[in-house]
């Protein structure tokens, strides 16, 4: 995932800056979702994911109707939610080798709960008795007790910042900023994987991505570039593609997930 990113590093960066319309100060789509989920005023474990999906999509539609540019993160999640909604509404055909809507919904709930848990934990942490605010160390230390390993003092952070700034100072910094208004589908999918977790099972997303990321008149070309981007991801070994017949929906799944799963079980197999 990372190598894909750095390849397009500077360009992506510039683009990100241009696109960031912080949707009312939310820190990313998961934050927005958590906020919307709380408005349901029930335990996160009992929220209606379908209702949450509706809330989110209508929120995005409203923002877009105001002709405000919405950061791509939010659109990618909108695409995923639209897909989730379709899966929740249309009963699963038996024997289909892909995630059920219920499984996808459970993943979403898990992620919302986990984010909320980390937020609460952060709050509890800063509200503890803290050194230098509530509890204090000796104000008049008489000596510095050091493990006598070295009479020199430097931290890894010191070392790394020194190195980074040295290299930065001497690198010729010419940055090309190219203007693009739409994210490439490859970028979108990269983000999607970051945002929604690994797509471990066959997932059809392209049509939804295109709906949310691209203006209607550009959908045909976007779909084409999406397909091209998918092929490239396949070539790089990042995803697998599957299509049952010509013109049928394109399914993709992450390859890294599988290899990581293998790795966790002990042996690393390089493939």
């Amino acid at each position, binding site marked *: 995932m*990372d190598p894909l990113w750095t390849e397009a590093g500077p360009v992506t960066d510039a683009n990100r800056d241009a696109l960031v319309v912080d949707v009312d100060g939310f*820190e990313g789509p998961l934050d927005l979702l958590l906020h919307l989920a709380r408005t349901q005023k029930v335990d996160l474990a009992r929220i209606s994911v379908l209702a949450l999906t509706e809330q989110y999509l209508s929120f995005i539609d409203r923002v877009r109707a105001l002709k405000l540019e919405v950061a791509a993160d939010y659109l990618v999640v909108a695409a995923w939610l639209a897909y989730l909604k379709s899966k929740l509404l249309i009963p699963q055909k038996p024997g289909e080798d892909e995630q059920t809507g219920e499984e996808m919904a459970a993943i979403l709930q898990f992620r919302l709960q986990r984010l909320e848990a*980390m937020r609460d934990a952060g709050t509890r942490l800063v509200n503890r008795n803290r050194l*230098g605010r509530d509890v204090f160390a000796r104000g008049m230390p008489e000596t510095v007790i050091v493990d006598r390993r070295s009479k020199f003092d430097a931290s890894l952070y010191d070392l790394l910042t020194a190195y980074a700034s040295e290299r930065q100072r001497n690198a010729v910094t010419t940055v090309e900023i190219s203007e693009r208004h739409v994210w490439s589908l490859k970028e979108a999918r990269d983000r999607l994987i970051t945002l929604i977790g690994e797509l471990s099972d066959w997932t059809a997303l392209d049509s939804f991505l295109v709906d949310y990321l691209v203006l209607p008149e550009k959908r045909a070309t976007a779909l084409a570039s999406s397909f091209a981007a998918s092929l490239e991801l396949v070539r790089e070994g990042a995803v697998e593609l599957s299509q049952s017949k010509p013109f049928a929906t394109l399914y993709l799944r992450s390859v890294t997930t599988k290899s990581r799963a293998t790795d966790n079980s002990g042996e*690393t197999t390089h493939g």
Partner: protein
Amino acid sequence: MDDGGQSTVVPFDGDERDQDGLDMDNPARRLQVAEAARMAEAVIFASAEPVSEKALADRLPEDADIPAALEELKTIYDKRGVNLIRVGDAWAFRTAGDLSFLMSRDAVVQKKLSRAALEVLATIAYHQPVTRAEIEDVRGVETSKGTLDILLETDWVRMRGRRRSPGRPVTYGTTLAFLDHFGLSELRDLPGMDELKGAGLLSTRMPTNFSVPLPLDDPDELTEDEDPLTDIDLEELGLLTPGGAND
């Protein structure tokens, strides 16, 4: 006090100690421990930073029973205006928490952590060792510049090493300074740690039984997707000195 991890730094006195750890009926031994406690007290008191048991061992006489001395000191200072606090494998005197109302005048203005930085800090603290990709997975956003580097700069967060997985990503964890700042003796003391672990919220992937959000009947019982803690887990939780043999 967990004696297990500490025995590694005290080389000689293992055989002198009986089952109860201290043979306090022996007046000579009692005096010896009291004297060691005085010395440990002086050294720890003199320093603003936590003093490691190794540093104490370096300074105190070879035959000093440091764990016993610390135990005694800790008891002596328990109800006082200044307490002896364990921070990882180090010890420090800190003013008692209930007196914070008195101390506010000494408070140095601390940089307020941004919400994002706090979230990243909590994610690192509870999930460590954790990679940047995993932090982003928890938060659903990329970590912007000025978040991780601020935490590294405060010296609450450090790079721990690399994950043994494809790409060998760098892992992050917290420091002794983190424990010291937030008044934690070890990571297991993190607020809500056990409940969060029990609820499966500290895993990078959704636990298989997650869709059943019923509270556990017996929080001590392992859930289906939990493995019993291995030594490596315990090390990570700071319950065991890395490499240290249990006694």
